[in-house]
């Protein structure tokens, strides 16, 4: 549990408890068994949507095939009951275990894919399982009726108990979600959703976190599916693994609000009763002496479209943005003294990062060609060069985004190559990107804490480190603003703070000054100068020569992937070959 979220945690828990009690209190007075069924189905679909939201909302791994887990839960429970007479009280947890294992089996190959490819591959699993079940003659399995001792088999004669169990199930699912939201788990997932590469560069092991999200999500979905089967009394592949089942949590969560705790619940609470009431009454409507059986699907679709058009972010976010302005933030605590630097670090002025003979080809193009340089402890090395010179590729090789073809790179004697992005980060290499990757709905402080978590710090350390980083870049006053409200300069500084929060030994900054005005540029340069004075080692890629001249201790000039020149700034800018590379031979001839 993150310390800074204690208040939010308590608030969400209170809402959860209050809502559950109000809902159950209401349900207790509903005696019509059909309305009671609706009251039971709302929390079941809500729990399923909550599970989807963990993977696809928080972690942004869009899944069109969550019915896999829902169906596994339903079928495991049912078959355990039919074949071995195992009560659903145990069958549902059993289904959760099977679904957790299935999540690993599904996740290992599927997480190799990203974006649309991931979403579509997920769709394939439930469809494949569906045909298996039909083939094995399990196309319709009914739950045996237990006339004696029905409660032991989760078969209540009073349907209100079904609602009670369903609400309990949803409360557990939401509670898990609250835990995730308020821990580094949730922050890691949000970071992955925003930009997987940036998250890895901040030290987050995205594969592991995604897998954890899938397993947790799959288990909750299985619980929902298991109890759904208990309520429906009949399982068919289509009702548990079907396309429409996979679509349900997507529609409900999009409707209610993606990546919000209450979004899936709002979606289910509105859409489930809507569709059921339409089912009940649409066929009773008689117009011009005709009845329109099946019209409910059209009306339902129309309502969903209308609401999504008017609240494209989902009901939760739209209502929150309109009616609940974020509160004025508590002031940021003062900076704590920096921890003692690791003894293994090199002495100031000695080479900290040593790159030698580094090469990378893309087909016939040698993007980085036999590049070698060193960054000394405590200096700012400017890496400059015209567009396409290979600067960003060089950084990508150094922090593990791309594998190098040849060469070596070491940080204080340890090799940096052949490691994963988050592992390089944990060695002490902080990285920022050309295009800022922020988490717009999260407060600035949370954006920065991600970096500290990535470095493997404990909750307390991470928070202290984030606070210190914000003070160092001069954003302490904006700590509680949502990142979406920051200016371009503040976003640049926020990225810098995120990298700093991971206690880096060296910072690799990729065009930190891009797109800034002259004054803004000066402010950022001041921050960089201050960092150097504190002893930070920095490698910075930049286009704009005059800005670099003001802060860099040394220059490395790249052209066509190779080192063109190296040395003190004044010397380098007067170098004929450098001028030629930047401005061309003609210019040189005219001005020589």
């Amino acid at each position: 549990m993150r310390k800074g979220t204690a208040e939010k945690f308590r608030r969400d828990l209170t809402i959860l408890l209050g809502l559950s009690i109000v809902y159950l209190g209401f349900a207790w007075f509903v005696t019509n068994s059909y309305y009671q069924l609706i009251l039971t189905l709302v929390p079941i679909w809500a729990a399923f949507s909550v599970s989807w939201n963990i993977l696809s909302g928080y972690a942004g791994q869009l899944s069109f095939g969550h019915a896999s887990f829902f169906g596994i839960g339903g079928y495991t429970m049912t078959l355990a009951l039919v074949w071995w007479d195992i009560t659903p009280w145990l069958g549902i947890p059993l289904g959760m275990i099977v679904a957790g294992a299935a999540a690993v089996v599904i996740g290992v190959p599927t997480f190799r894919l990203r974006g649309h490819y991931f979403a579509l591959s997920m769709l394939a699993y439930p469809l494949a399982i569906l045909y298996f079940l039909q083939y094995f003659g399990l196309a319709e399995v009914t739950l045996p009726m237990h006339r004696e001792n029905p409660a032991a088999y989760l078969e209540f004669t009073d349907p209100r108990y079904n609602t009670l169990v369903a609400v309990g199930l949803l409360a557990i699912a939401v509670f898990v979600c609250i835990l995730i939201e308020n821990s580094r788990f949730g922050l890691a997932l949000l970071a992955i959703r925003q930009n997987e590469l940036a998250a890895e560069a901040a030290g987050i092991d995205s594969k592991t976190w995604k897998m954890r999200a899938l397993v947790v999500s799959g288990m909750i979905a299985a619980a929902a599916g298991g109890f759904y089967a208990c309520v429906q009394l009949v399982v068919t592949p289509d009702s548990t693994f079907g396309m429409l089942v996979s679509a349900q949590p997507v529609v409900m969560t999009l409707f209610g609000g993606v990546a919000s705790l209450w979004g899936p619940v709002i979606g289910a609470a509105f859409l489930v009763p809507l569709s059921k009431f339409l089912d009940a009454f649409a066929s009773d409507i008689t117009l011009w002496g005709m009845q329109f059986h099946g019209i409910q699907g059209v009306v339902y679709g129309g309502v969903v479209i209308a609401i999504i058009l008017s609240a494209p972010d989902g009901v939760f976010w739209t209502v929150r943005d309109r009616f609940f302005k974020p509160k004025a933030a508590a002031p940021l605590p003062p900076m704590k003294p920096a921890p003692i630097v690791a003894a293994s670090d090199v002495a100031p002025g000695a080479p900290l990062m040593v790159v030698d003979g580094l090469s990378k080809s893309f087909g016939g193009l040698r993007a980085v060609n036999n590049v070698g340089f060193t960054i000394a402890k405590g200096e700012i090395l400017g890496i400059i060069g015209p567009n396409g010179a290979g600067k960003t590729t060089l950084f990508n090789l150094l922090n593990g985004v791309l594998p190098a073809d040849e060469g070596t790179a070491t940080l204080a004697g340890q090799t940096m190559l052949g490691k994963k992005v988050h592992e390089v980060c944990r060695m002490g290499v902080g990285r920022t990107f050309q295009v800022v990757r922020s988490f717009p709905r999260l407060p600035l402080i949370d954006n920065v804490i991600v970096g500290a978590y990535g470095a493997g710090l404990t909750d307390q350390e991470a928070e202290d480190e984030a606070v210190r980083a914000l003070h160092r870049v001069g954003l302490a006053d904006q700590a509680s603003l949502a990142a979406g409200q920051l200016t371009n300069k503040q976003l640049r500084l926020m990225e810098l703070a995120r990298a700093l929060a991971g206690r880096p030994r060296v910072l690799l900054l990729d065009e930190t000054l891009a797109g800034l005005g002259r004054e803004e540029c000066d402010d950022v340069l001041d921050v960089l100068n201050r960092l150097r004075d504190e002893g930070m080692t920095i490698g910075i890629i930049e286009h704009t020569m005059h800005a670099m001249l003001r802060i860099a201790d040394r220059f490395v000039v790249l052209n066509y992937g190779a080192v063109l020149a190296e040395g003190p700034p004044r010397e380098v800018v007067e170098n004929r070959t450098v001028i030629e590379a930047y401005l061309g031979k003609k210019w040189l001839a005219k001005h020589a």
Partner: protein
Amino acid sequence: MSRIGRRSALGMAGAAALAGKTGAQGAEVKIAMLVPLSGVNARNGQLEQMAARMAVEEVNAAGGIKSMGGAKLKLLEFDAGDSPEKAKDAAQRMIASEPDLAGGFGCWHSGLTLAATEVTERAELPWLTLSYSDLITNRGFKNVFQSSPPADQQAKEVLPIIMELATKATGKKPAKAAIVGDNNPAVASFLKPMRDYGFKDAGLTLVADEIFTAPLADATTIVQKLRSAKPDFLLALSTNVGDDKLLVEKLAEFGLSGKKLPVIGNGGHWLVPEIVKLTAPENLEGLLISLANWPGKAHAALEKRFTDRTKEPWFGHDSIFAYAHVMILKEAIERGASADRRKVAATLRSIDITDGPALLFPDGRLAYDEKGRRKGAKISIVQYQNGKPVLVYPEAAASAKPVWPKTA
């Protein structure tokens, strides 16, 4: 609490829409029909609906339930939709909104019936069904009554009947059979006894066995395989009109229409009136269909009443079952002189008659065994002759003689 009170407890806006259904005044006995009125099987539901409405009108016109002082029958209609969840939901809605139902029938499709009867059984509502799946009456339920011979029995009976028809017509026993069908559970249970021992006992070799997932996109490869396998007859076990049409048209295109290759289908969908509009009548000519019921020569007057009233081309499987089920419920209510569902169920469990509604089945007996299966229920065989389906088996009830297509 009154029903209205319960409803207002939820403050339902749509309550008014139901008022027409619930305003029961005076002596009225409510029975329910839960059939697909939307979705892929809606047409079958409508064929049931038309006949059920006619049956209720006839009962009421003839004086209603006499033992209850001429109480009128009231038919409440519910849409089972196109999925087990929808059927189960609708059943739950029916049970919740109509606590004084005396009984009901539906849901045509076995999958829908299986789901809906999970609800009706718990509510102890006597439920009649024409669905074939033997799973329906294998669950130990007390209040579900299956009027059709269940699928396993149909499967056992159909092969010997086919052999008999073929041997009589051609003088020799067929030796090679072929199957084409979808992977619907009803088909699987229909085929199981044949696969287990039926073909072997009849001395048949299975030369083609083509199972597909409905709906069929294209029947070409299937029919090509059938043609090269050269069977003596074909069991065409598709389960919906669209696939039926694709199959018979492709068979005709390959020169294997019902006149050339004996084709035996199973189920009422082969005989919905639309099929003659969807495909040329010659594609259907000679086609034999085994199913659970069909009006025979004794039902000419009933058939005429129905076709005059509805302008449908014939009075078929779905309609005669719906008609029969209304009449059976009426009979049970009449005999028990009560609309209490438990009494109606008890009467249905003990009834054993060979007149009245029993005559709406070709075998002419109405009695249900301890599983809820109709005793002595027998398969019927219908054949398209001159563009119209006619009952050709059992002989006693048949209105025409069967024609076994001569294989080329």
